[in-house]
């Protein structure tokens, strides 16, 4: 029977950097990922025969990390097409996928990346309306942009990045609808670290060339379906524009996707965007930090601090980006119509939330309101429910951690056998 290894969930930048950090300190790890190849959201690997994507510096960053992983030999095992279903109070973790199994890890690092924030708007549940990330995933994997007219809307630097990628792939979006007014913040923008500026100007140059209009200070107020066409209305500054399109990508930033990190006997740590959503540059740095910190903890040595100057710099850059893209989200949320679906899983609306009265407890929100009780466990509604209640979304998440951390076919549990059959 092998020594218990550290289980790392997520083979993106943070997960693999953590594995390297652990291996260098003498600890073996098993890295699982739900995708068919390592890479995570940023370095998602193309299908065989599809050209690699991304800027050269980004590709180099990934290749260097892969080389570091290879250099550690069998101290790092990567298992793709497998998913982490959670870890119970006794320290037994369930993996499902090609071969479901129970394992007893020495510790767990969740490097599960980010979830996209999407501000609810009537019609956002219609087929053809996805996150911007879903469009990027398809593009990075197949090299093919979605067919037909595409509209991107929301807020943040990812909109321009994704639009530039679509343009490069031959199907620029018909427009970008950006709630903020980023071009009015030149001083803040120029104070961003050089890497951010270089990326942003590469993207903007492409968008200019492809003549993609960027409608700043506007947001979508509704999406309707007419036959096969989606019609999105953008409003702002006292005017409105209608867009008839085939696909709509929505994106309002990212938040940590650190689900499943509670109540077990072995150490559980978060790394990368799953700990704090600071983006790709920070994910690599934070993965190294998390690996080294966990190694110290397992060896009984003093644990290094959980921030570093490099991470502080990324945090400051992200704050600056938020200032550049600032807009009146609070006012929009208060005015959200009663018919707007907040909880996509259980079809619960802003009206259903208001019907719960003045100041419902979390328990009432969940048991009477059914918010954060659906299949996604509140990933997509929790923040909006909190904010509509006037609470700070940074408060404890509305959805308590439930095992398994995602819905699971019973057959997967049966396939996994008994927890103490060693595997």
């Amino acid at each position, binding site marked *: 029977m092998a020594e218990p290894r550290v289980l790392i969930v997520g083979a993106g930048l943070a997960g693999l950097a953590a594995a390297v950090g652990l291996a260098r300190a003498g600890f073996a790890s098993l890295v699982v990922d739900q995708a068919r190849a390592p890479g995570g959201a940023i370095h998602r690997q193309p299908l065989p025969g599809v050209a690699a994507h991304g800027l050269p510096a980004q590709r180099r960053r990934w290749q260097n990390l892969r080389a570091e992983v290879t250099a550690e030999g069998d101290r790092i095992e990567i298992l793709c097409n497998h*998913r982490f279903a959670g870890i119970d109070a006794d320290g037994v973790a369930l993996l499902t996928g090609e071969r479901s199994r129970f394992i007893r890890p020495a510790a767990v690092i969740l490097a599960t990346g980010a979830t996209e924030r999407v501000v609810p708007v009537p019609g956002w549940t219609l*087929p053809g*309306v996805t996150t911007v*990330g879903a469009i990027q995933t398809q593009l990075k994997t*197949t090299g093919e942009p979605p067919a037909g007219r595409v509209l991107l809307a929301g807020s943040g630097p990812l909109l321009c990045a994704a639009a530039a990628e679509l343009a490069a792939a031959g199907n620029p979006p018909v427009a970008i609808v950006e709630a903020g007014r980023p071009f009015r913040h030149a001083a803040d923008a120029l104070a961003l670290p050089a890497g951010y500026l270089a990326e942003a100007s590469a993207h903007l140059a492409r968008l200019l060339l492809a003549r993609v209009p960027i409608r700043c200070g506007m947001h979508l107020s509704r999406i309707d379906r007419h036959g096969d066409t989606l019609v999105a209305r953008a409003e702002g500054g006292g005017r409105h524009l209608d867009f008839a399109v085939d696909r709509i990508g929505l994106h309002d930033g990212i938040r940590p996707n650190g689900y499943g990190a509670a109540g077990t006997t072995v150490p559980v740590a978060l790394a990368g965007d799953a700990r704090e959503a600071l983006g790709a540059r920070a994910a690599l740095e934070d993965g190294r930090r998390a690996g080294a910190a966990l190694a110290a903890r397992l060896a009984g040595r003093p644990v290094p601090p959980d921030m570093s100057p490099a991470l502080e710099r990324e945090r400051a850059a992200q704050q600056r980006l938020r200032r550049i893209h600032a807009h009146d989200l609070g006012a929009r949320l208060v005015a959200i119509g009663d018919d707007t679906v907040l909880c*996509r*899983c259980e079809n619960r609306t802003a009206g259903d939330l208001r019907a719960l009265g003045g100041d419902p407890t979390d328990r009432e929100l969940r048991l009477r309101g059914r918010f954060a009780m659906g299949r*996604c466990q509140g990933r*997509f509604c929790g923040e909006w429910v909190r904010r509509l209640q006037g609470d700070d979304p940074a408060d404890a998440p509305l959805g308590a951690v439930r095992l398994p951390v*995602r819905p699971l076919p019973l057959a997967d549990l049966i396939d996994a056998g008994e927890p103490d059959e060693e595997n």
Partner: protein
Amino acid sequence: MSGAILWNGAPVAFRAGESVASALARAGIRALGDLPTGQEAAVFCGIGQCQGCLVSLDGRLVEACLTPCRDGLRVASAGAGNG
């Protein structure tokens, strides 16, 4: 293209390694069926977090965005009852 899955019985071509969601999107199929809550099943997050793209595979509900295609794989709308 390296084969075809069967979507509600009809062949849909796929490229080696791609997900069911990806093959269906190329074929212009966006609505994936009806969920018990009254919503339509459809891809939203594309990475297994929203559970909006559930389809039926031999009677198991799975995420279309995470399920790799195989030649002859039978996939059906979640509400179709013919998985």
